[in-house]
Structures are given as structure tokens and as C-alpha cells.
């Protein structure tokens, strides 16, 4: 009985998303509720395959909300990476393409140059962007391609089983640094945002995290700014780096993973706006 009631409730809430407010929709006064938070249309109602506590789910939602708030759904094309988010097109309801590992900024360049009126964004992990794709991102930024790049930094290669990423921090244990990352052997973690901020063609670079609600709100603002710049026709590349949890390969609980971002990752990858040419930063 309770199960049936909760199902009716769910249906009512869903109807309220798309219908004007009407108390007659729900006859039972005990469950007469106002909808205050709904799934945004660009986020598909499709269960994700992500691990419990993964940051991709949060970030997909932020991107979908931004696309809907800016009203650009009909002209946005997204590029999915090789990584855990390879199936992003199952979750984001925009035209999407799946490309070779790391090549997204080059594909984005081909798309944007031939379709300047479309909003092109790439969604890339730290393997995609900071390992195999370093050439492509640097040159896209260097040329000032008018695209938006969402860079997910979780300090590890998730999809392939938790190997070291260029962003793995010193001492971090991974599948290929089983005694912990050692600077002498494996080098230092790569600070992509700092590197790209040096290039004149990169006009907006900000690093955020999704480790708590305040940070998530900051992250959404940054993502929105990065898309808005493209909508405004700003001459240059925008990149938002997001510190995101990987509880599975950090071998932590989701809650501990969020703490680890705040206590450890931000020491190596400080949060903040590194560059915002539009606002003279």
C-alpha cells in the first residue's frame, strides 16, 4: 500500500514539473506538495553507471542545468571522452560525439570553426586531457579556440582500474604506483590550469571542487561563466577544472573521499580563478 502511495506521489511530482501548479492534480491532501527541485530537462532520466560517491553525476547535473538556464540546448554539441564518462551521451540529452582519447579539443576545433553559431563543449578526465591529450588542449588554448572545456581531475585513471594519472599526488598509491608516487621516478603532479593560464588564447581558467554544497555552487557558477563566454562570442578558450572524488580507486568511503579532496588535493591543486580576461583577472 505504501509503495503504491509513493509511486502516485512520484507521478504527481513529475507531472508538476511540466504542468502549471494545480492542487486538484493530487486528491490526497496529505501528500499535496509543491515541487521545489526537479530534474532539469537536459539531464536524461537514465540510471548512471557511475560508482557510489563518484563526482561525474554531480557535474553532469551542473552542466545540464547550465545548458537549460542559458537556453542553448538546441544548439549545443558535446564531446564525450575516453574514460568513465565515455557514455555521457546516455545522460546528457544534447547532440554528442565520442572521440579518440585526448583528441577532444581538436575535434571541438573542427566543429566550432565550421559551425561558429553552435556551442561546443568537451568533457574530459585527467587521462584524456592531461596525459594523452596535452598536445591538443595546449594548442586549442594557444589558438584561442572558442570552446568550453570541462576538465574532471580525480587524480587517477578510473575507467582502466586506478592507475597513476598525471594529476596523481606525491605519495598516492595507485595500481601503477603501488608504493606511492615518487617524484624522482614518476615526476610531480601536473597543474593543468596553471599551465594553460599562461597562454593568451585561454581567457577563463578556474579550478573548483564538488566536495561540499558550497563548492558545488561555486562550480556551477564557474561552469555557467565558461558557457556564457562562448555564447557571448568571447575570443578564447574557457576551462573549468573540477576536483572530483573517485572513492573506488582512492580506496575510501565517499565521505572520506570528499574530505581527501579538501584536505589533500587542494594543497596541490589550489581552488580559485586563475584567469578571467573578461573581468580583468
Amino acid at each position, binding site marked *: 500500500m505504501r509503495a503504491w502511495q509513493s509511486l502516485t506521489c512520484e507521478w504527481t511530482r513529475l507531472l508538476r514539473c511540466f504542468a502549471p501548479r494545480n492542487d486538484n492534480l493530487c486528491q490526497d491532501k496529505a501528500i499535496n506538495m509543491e515541487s521545489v527541485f526537479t530534474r532539469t530537462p537536459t539531464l536524461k532520466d537514465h540510471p548512471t553507471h557511475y560508482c557510489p560517491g563518484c563526482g561525474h553525476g554531480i557535474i553532469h547535473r551542473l552542466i545540464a542545468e547550465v545548458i537549460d538556464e542559458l537556453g542553448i*540546448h*538546441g*544548439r*549545443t*554539441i558535446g564531446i564525450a571522452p575516453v574514460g568513465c564518462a*565515455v557514455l555521457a*551521451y546516455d545522460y546528457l*540529452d*544534447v*547532440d*554528442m*560525439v*565520442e*572521440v*579518440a582519447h585526448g*583528441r577532444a579539443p*581538436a*575535434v*571541438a*576545433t*573542427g*566543429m566550432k*570553426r*565550421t*559551425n561558429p553559431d*553552435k556551442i561546443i563543449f568537451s568533457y574530459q578526465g585527467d587521462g584524456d586531457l592531461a596525459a594523452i591529450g596535452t*598536445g*591538443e588542449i595546449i*594548442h586549442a588554448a594557444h589558438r584561442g579556440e572558442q570552446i568550453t572545456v570541462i576538465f574532471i581531475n580525480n587524480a587517477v585513471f578510473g575507467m582502466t582500474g586506478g592507475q597513476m594519472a598525471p594529476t596523481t599526488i606525491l605519495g598516492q598509491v595507485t595500481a601503477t604506483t603501488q608504493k606511492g608516487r615518487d617524484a624522482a621516478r614518476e615526476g610531480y603532479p601536473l597543474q593543468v590550469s596553471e599551465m594553460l593560464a599562461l597562454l593568451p588564447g585561454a581567457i577563463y581558467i578556474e579550478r573548483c571542487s564538488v566536495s561540499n554544497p558550497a563548492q558545488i555552487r561555486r562550480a556551477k557558477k564557474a561552469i555557467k561563466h565558461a558557457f556564457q563566454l562562448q555564447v557571448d562570442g568571447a575570443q578564447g578558450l574557457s576551462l573549468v577544472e573540477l576536483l572530483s572524488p573517485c572513492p573506488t580507486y582512492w580506496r575510501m568511503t565517499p565521505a572520506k573521499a570528499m574530505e581527501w579532496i579538501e584536505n589533500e588535493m587542494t594543497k596541490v591543486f589550489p581552488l580559485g580563478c586563475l584567469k578571467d580576461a573578461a573581468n580583468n583577472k
Partner: protein
Amino acid sequence: MATRFLQQTRRNKLSEDVNVSERLLMCGNEALAESAILAGCDAYFGYPITPQNEIPAYMSRRMPEEGRVFLQCESELAAINMVFGASATGKRAMTSSSSPGISLMQEGISYLSGAELPAVVVNVMRGGPGLGNIAPSQGDYSQATRGGGHGDYRTIVFGPSSVQELVDCMQLAFDLADQYRMTVVVLADGILGQMMEPIVFEKKPGRKLPPKDWALTGAKGRPQNIVRSLWLAEGALEELNYKLQAKYEQVQKNEVLCEQYFLADAEIVVVAYGIAARIVRGAVTKAREKGIKAGWIRPITLWPFPTEQISKAADEFRIFLVVEMSLGQMVEDVKLAIAGKAPVLFYGRPGGGFPTVDEILDKIRQLTISKKK
């Protein structure tokens, strides 16, 4: 002198009512570039590499004149991926390179093929392997006709043997790419790219092509389009491969191009393509003058390969001599086509070397003598 010819080209832009240009003297690289523009190429992405640098230079000037996209990018790896991006949005896109750069593009070509995106790739072949040299070669035949990258796929491959043929096959390349949603590789070489020959540009009626309703143009008023090559569900990728195979069978049935000369009574048949075929023409002509019954088959599409024509030619007892500027790559396809019906011999010059008319004539003579024995 070059400027005058280029000015002529601009005057003869076939965007108005003119269907055939006057005869122009152009080098292969620039002629193929202009032909691509005529074919409606929307975007050219490329990186410098000898011996095809005239192509990006020419495109850098002409594409903006036509309001199209030109970009010199950071590598061949980037170039093929920019082609991928433009093609995914429904545009006609191309790139060009030479052998070592084409190796870098193999990943991209595999992805283009898996995602069923149209593309045109020009390979002005040079000596290899490795850095090789900048002399002409035909050492990339296997790479082009066997797919080159990972997975079960094919690309349509042209082996033109004159600048006019290069111009003509560029027009066809874009149509075939769109019709079949495939990558079309045009194999030129260092000689063909550099040599100047008189040509005409002709506006030919294009093929009737299917609409690009799969293209990524923004999901306004329709469900999202997805361009992908990853198919994880059980059996899904196998299904895609069978779909590709069915498509390739259509191409093999409909698109073979091949020419044959002096075949009727030929006892020695020389098989060659591209610039090697030009040299072979000289040798066969001279052989005939000396009363040697030599003939010659010239594949123009290297994939689909003219298997039927060559097989038929082997029904008469003949000796086949395959001539290539390599250690022997097309010779394998000739042997497969002939299936043991006749002897197949090979003569080649690899690593940037190319045979002379007399060298080939000598080989033909030797075969005549051995046949008599």
C-alpha cells in the same frame, strides 16, 4: 609564372555559369587542392610535410577567399581529428599529408570508419619506412588498402596516374565519401604532387546523395544525434561490423575503376598504378614497337581492387609482371585475383627509387625469352 597561372585559376573559378575551365598548367598538389574547393570542401586541416607542402599553402590562400575554413594545426594527429569534428557536423572536410604523417592519422581513420563519417585524406607518398626520404614512393599501398588502423574496416583508395586524373578523382572522392559514409584515401606520390601538366577543371553533375540526418547540428526539435564507435552491448559491435561489410560489398560491386591497354593478344601483362603506370606505359609502347606482345592493366581504384578484370585477364595463358615503387604490395592483390591461374612476377624499386622505361622494357624482354623457353 606561378602567380599568372594562379590568377588564371581564380578567374576560372567555376562558381558561375562556366562548366569547363580553359587549359591550365598546374602542379599536382595545387591542382588537387583547387579540385577539392570545386567539390565543395568546407574545411581543410593540415600540417606541413614534404612533398605536399604546396597543398596547405594553396589552401591557406584559397579557402578564406571562398569563405571556407583553413587551419594549419599542430600535428597530423590533430588534423585528422579536426576532420572528424567537422565531418560529424555534416561538413565536407579533408586533410593531406605524406607517409609518416599518414601513419599518425591511422587512429583517426579507424575512428572515422567506426563512426561512419565521410572524409577525404590525400597521401602524397614518399620513401619509407621511418623518416625515409622525400622522394616519391608507393610504399603505402598496404597501409591504405588494408585499413591501416585497428579493426575490420576499409577505405576507398584511388591511385591516379596523371594530374588530370588526380583532379577528377578529388571530385569523385567527396561524393563517394558522402554516399557511403567512408574515408576516401587519394594516393598520390612525390612526382605526381610536384609535376606540372596541362589540365582542365570541369564542373560535373554530382551524384544523388542521401541527406545527412545523422549529423550533429544541435538537437533542436528532434531527439539527440550521437556519433560513436563504442558499442558495448552484447552483439552490438558485431552488428556494426556486418553493417560495414554490407556497405563495403556495395562499394566493391559499384565503384571499381580500371583501365586496360593492348590486352587482346598480350602474352605479357604488366600491372601498375599511379606514377609507375606512366612509366609502364612508355615501356609497353616501346615493347609493342619491337613486336613484343605486351599489354597493361592499370587499376585506378586500389580499393575496391579490380579483382574481376585481372582474374578474367588471367584466363588466357599469360605472364603477369607487377611493377611498383615498393618491395611489392599490390602484387599480393594481383596474385589473389589470379588465384594461381597464371605466373605473377614482380619488379620494384623501393625507398624513393623509381624505375625507368628501359628497365621495365628489359624485364618484359626477359619474360618474353623465358616464355619462349
